[in-house]
């Protein structure tokens, strides 16, 4: 009998294979949009509004046109003549491409210049004269909801105020009854501040319209090339087969590169008008002040509690600031994303959520920054609320969670707000985390330290987030169902080319996808090329965000491999001259059941598919698969942080952080750990420093990397990762649940809870993120909560 292949050796499931894409990235050989130079290419720069809300009374671009090297100046008026001044958003609203009537946020696109080089384009932008007549500015949803608030969207006919939607889910009356029966009602109000995904590579595009072929090729920074193709077909009214979207290497996306931005549209129009390639590369400030932000939600909720710690009911109200246009990237059924996944991992009998969204004079586009559609806010609120409720009950944080976490024998578990959770071992994860951090010991240390005036604290966050949208019944974007796809060609010599409808931006798709092929077909991962991002070659897919690639595209890869294997089995039967029923499969090889020494490898089958197929069989060994997942996947995580707070300065240091992630089967454990570390870093960032705020005039504070702080390796603490608990997803072909976002979603609350724990005894219940030293110090010295968007203080 031959020895079966060693799956780890061929880079299959469970192999910590080095990332193949890094080969080119660390050598500086990546091919990003800005690396592409086409013959005859022109350059576009955008002129943005310096003010947040104003009527445009005059635009005079004549001086810009006069500058040598300028080819085209686009203004809203010119866009309007082509019906392109406005475009549809991903949430059934409209967004200005170039402003015509008013500007509605600082940084809004007002005009574009296309010139021989970007320096000239920039000079010409400065030569455009614009008169702005200032209008009152609305910078938060509370102001926006006031009866006399200025109406921001006066372009919309039936828009009476600034409310975009009122949306609710759950059982309001049942929840009221639960609160009537409660021994204790615990309430918490907080703000999840606005942040920005801020990928290092900003957005950009090169539009190349070729008049002789009528074909439009657009190289662009997009996480979802097929959605863009559809959008361009609809907005620009070009035939879809004449549009080719190529998404080359992407320097980070984090949700920021899902929407359609005015810059893309203008570069496309300019290329069509000038019949030359037009490149637009956004600068950092443009990216930070105008493209898809994240969060900016005010959350207010309560838990109905029994004295013994059991949660009887939950209710929550959210007030979301969507900026000037409702351009959130999210499933169309759910107005505030999957906010109602909150408290999913706890056994809560009844719940209700009411959500309101409003327009303000701020940049539009609540994108899912490393979170599956607003679940970051949902889980943050959940875990901050749990912390506050345990304190209100005078109960240990771990014990309170033990009492309420969904037990292993309760799956499948239906949540009161409508989700179905399939599997998990929540208790085991919590206990593992507590043991790893030395929970009881730390509580004793904390008491000791307090006697010497030192403030130590510990914070727990346990959560399960929904990933992998969709299933097509419930999840769509603009009506396009959220499935995904894969296509494989096995060449004659047994090497393969795999394409999917996803689009990686650093997640390591080129590495892990090949590992799924290795697992399913026994073809060594090194023999598989993975390609994504070109709509002329890749099968249709919804792209990569919301941790959906492994749950959806990854499943499609397994399914297409199984189709190919089924055909290879027929070829094997032919080669071995036995009937198909007598054939068995082991990794990489078919053999005769009764004579296991007689077998053929998958490579031999591949050769036969092109050289020796049975009569009547279609030649070749390739196929495709579209995968519509039956449900979301629900990984679970337990994050525990310990901190020390300096009471004199408010500075806090992380002493230890333990992360237990049960994300189902791990395809490449090293990549999984990398994803978790990245997520924890972002969680630390949110809790400590990373936010965007606005002054009362709507000026964006956080428009460059001196003000928008992203932690460096210097301040980021070390993390201790645990992956011992593995609960395979019962409905996913390879049992994976997705992991890209868990740590960024569940992590922030662990940091904040730890600092709040250190402040226990001061009477402070909440400090809103980020926990900048001055806010912590203010809470300690003034003994009050520090809430709301971090103020841009005027002189004090």
């Amino acid at each position, binding site marked *: 009998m031959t020895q079966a292949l060693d799956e780890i050796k061929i880079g299959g499931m469970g192999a910590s294979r080095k990332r193949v894409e890094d080969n080119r990235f660390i050598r500086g050989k990546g091919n990003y949009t800005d690396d592409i130079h086409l013959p005859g290419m022109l350059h576009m*720069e955008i002129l943005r509004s310096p003010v947040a809300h104003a009527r445009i009374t005059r635009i005079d671009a004549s001086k810009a046109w006069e500058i040598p090297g300028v080819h085209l100046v686009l203004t809203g008026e010119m866009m309007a003549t082509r019906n392109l001044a406005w475009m549809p958003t991903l949430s059934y609203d409209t967004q200005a491409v170039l402003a015509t009537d008013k500007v509605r946020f600082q940084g809004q696109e007002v005009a574009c210049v296309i010139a021989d080089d*970007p*320096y000239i*384009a*920039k*000079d010409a932008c*400065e030569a455009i004269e614009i008169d702005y007549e200032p209008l009152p500015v609305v910078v938060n949803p509370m102001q926006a909801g006031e009866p006399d608030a200025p109406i921001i969207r006066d372009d919309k006919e039936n828009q009476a105020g600034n409310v975009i939607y009122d949306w609710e889910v759950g059982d309001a009356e049942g929840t009221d009854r639960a609160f009537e029966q409660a021994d204790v009602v615990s309430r918490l109000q907080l703000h999840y501040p606005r942040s920005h995904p801020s990928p290092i590579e900003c957005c950009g595009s090169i539009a190349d319209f070729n008049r002789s072929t009528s074909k439009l090729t657009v190289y662009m920074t997009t996480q979802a090339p097929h959605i863009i193709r559809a959008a361009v077909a609809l907005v620009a009214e070009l035939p879809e087969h004449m549009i080719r979207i190529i998404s080359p290497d992407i320097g980070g996306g984090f949700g920021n590169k899902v929407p359609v931005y005015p810059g893309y549209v203008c570069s496309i129009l300019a290329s069509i008008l000038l019949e030359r390639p037009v490149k637009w590369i956004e*600068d*950092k*400030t443009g990216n930070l002040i105008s493209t898809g932000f994240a969060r900016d939600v005010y959350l207010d909720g309560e838990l109905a509690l029994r004295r013994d710690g059991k949660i009887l009911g939950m209710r929550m109200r959210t007030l979301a600031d969507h900026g000037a246009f409702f351009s959130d990237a999210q499933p169309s059924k759910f107005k505030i994303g999957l906010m109602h996944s909150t408290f999913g991992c706890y056994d809560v009998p009844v719940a209700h959520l009411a959500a309101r969204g409003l327009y303000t004079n701020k940049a539009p586009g609540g994108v899912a920054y490393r979170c599956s559609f607003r679940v970051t806010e949902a889980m943050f609120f959940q875990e901050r609320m749990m912390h506050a409720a345990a304190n209100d009950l005078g109960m240990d944080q771990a014990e309170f969670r033990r009492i309420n976490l969904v037990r292993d024998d309760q799956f499948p578990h239906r949540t009161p707000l409508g989700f179905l959770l399939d599997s998990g071992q929540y208790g085991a994860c919590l206990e593992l985390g507590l043991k790893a951090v030395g929970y009881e010991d730390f509580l004793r240390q904390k008491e000791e330290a307090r006697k010497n005036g030192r403030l130590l604290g510990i914070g727990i966050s346990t959560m399960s987030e929904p990933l992998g949208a969709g299933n097509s019944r419930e999840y769509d974007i603009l009506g396009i169902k959220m499935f995904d796809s894969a296509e494989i060609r096995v060449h004659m010599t047994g090497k393969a080319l795999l394409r999917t409808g996803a689009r990686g931006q650093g997640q390591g798709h080129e590495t892990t996808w090949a590992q799924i092929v290795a697992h399913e077909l026994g073809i060594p991962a090194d023999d598989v090329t993975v390609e994504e991002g070109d709509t002329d070659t890749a099968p249709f897919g919804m792209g990569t965000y919301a941790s959906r690639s492994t749950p959806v595209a990854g499943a499609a890869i397994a399914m297409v491999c199984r189709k190919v294997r089924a055909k290879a089995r027929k070829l094997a039967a032919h080669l071995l001259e036995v009937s198909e029923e007598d054939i068995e499969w082991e990794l990489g090889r078919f053999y005769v059941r009764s004579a296991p020494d007689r077998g053929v490898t998958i490579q031999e089958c591949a050769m036969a598919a092109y050289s020796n197929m049975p009569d009547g069989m279609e030649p070749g060994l390739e196929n495709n698969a579209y995968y519509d997942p039956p449900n979301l996947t629900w990984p679970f995580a337990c994050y525990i942080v310990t901190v020390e707070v300096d009471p*004199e*300065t*408010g*500075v806090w240091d992380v002493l230890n952080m333990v992360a237990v992630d049960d994300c189902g089967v791990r395809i490449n454990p090293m990549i999984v750990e990398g994803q978790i570390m990245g997520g924890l870093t972002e969680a630390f960032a949110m809790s400590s*420093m990373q936010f965007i*705020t606005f002054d009362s005039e709507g000026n964006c*504070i956080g428009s*460059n990397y*001196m*003000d928008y*702080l*992203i*932690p*460096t390796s*210097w*301040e980021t603490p070390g993390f201790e990762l645990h992956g011992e608990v593995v609960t395979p997803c019962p409905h996913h072909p390879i049992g994976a649940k997705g992991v890209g976002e868990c740590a960024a979603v569940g992590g922030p609350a662990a940091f904040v809870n730890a600092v709040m724990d250190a402040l226990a005894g001061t009477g402070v219940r909440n400090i809103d993120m980020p926990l*900048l*030293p*001055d806010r912590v*110090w*203010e809470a300690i010295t003034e003994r009050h909560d520090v809430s709301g968007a*971090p103020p*841009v*203080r*005027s*002189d*004090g």
Partner: protein
Amino acid sequence: MYPSRFRYEAARSLDQAVRLLRDGGDEAKVLAGGQSLIPMMKLRFASPELLVDINNIPGLDYHHADPDGSIHVGALCRHADLEHSGLLQSRQPTMAAAAPLIADPLVRNRGTLVGSLCHADPQGDWASVVLALGGSIVAHGPDGRRTIPAADFVLGPFENALAHDEIAVEAIIPAPRGAPAGGYLKLERRVGDFATAGVAVAIETDGAMVTRAGIALTGVGGSTIKATAAEAALTGRPLTAETIAEAGRLAAEAAQPKSDHRGSATYKRHIVRTFVVRILGRIEGTQERAA
């Protein structure tokens, strides 16, 4: 980010650089480490017509101590040189403490101490350090050289006392007369961030007695602030819990912070006091251990 059009000249000697500056008039600027000037140009906050690059001028990248004990820092001595300087570590505790707190390693590899003084950013760290140490700046112009005390060098935010055709060639830290002690503490939100508040303390002692005290504050006013009352409260006295607390209180009073996204004015004042007390407390602790 695309700056406006500018001309660029790489000077080979100080005299050539001065000529270029004189011919360029108000629209010419010296380019040293470029870590303040280049970002300003890219943001189009500054649009000089001519850059006079001094990086190729030989003999400006030094820092050394003269026989009399004074320390001299040339115009092309980088922050990183000072960070790794054995000389500062053994002889100049305030400078040694400040160097690693400037910006991040990348900026430190290019940026210069002299350039930082010329830039006169109220949040620049070196200005407080040099002010606390009673240093001065040597300017080289068409008519030769002159020495300008640090206290007179900065005229206001982003404004220095150089004529448009003068180049700052070195900074001088005078020789201490007593035993030097001191430190620099900076509160920053993140590595590479400018100071929310920073405190430079440089004292000299004779036995237990403080013979000279320099205290200067970063980021808590329109310019670097010299906390003269706090200095006076220490001079001629020993370091004790009382004198230290008093110096902290007076330094906080001297600060003129504004509330902004880095913190409230109250908080910044409080940090000044805390840091003065911490630095002096550490010195006092060392003295006690030595005694």
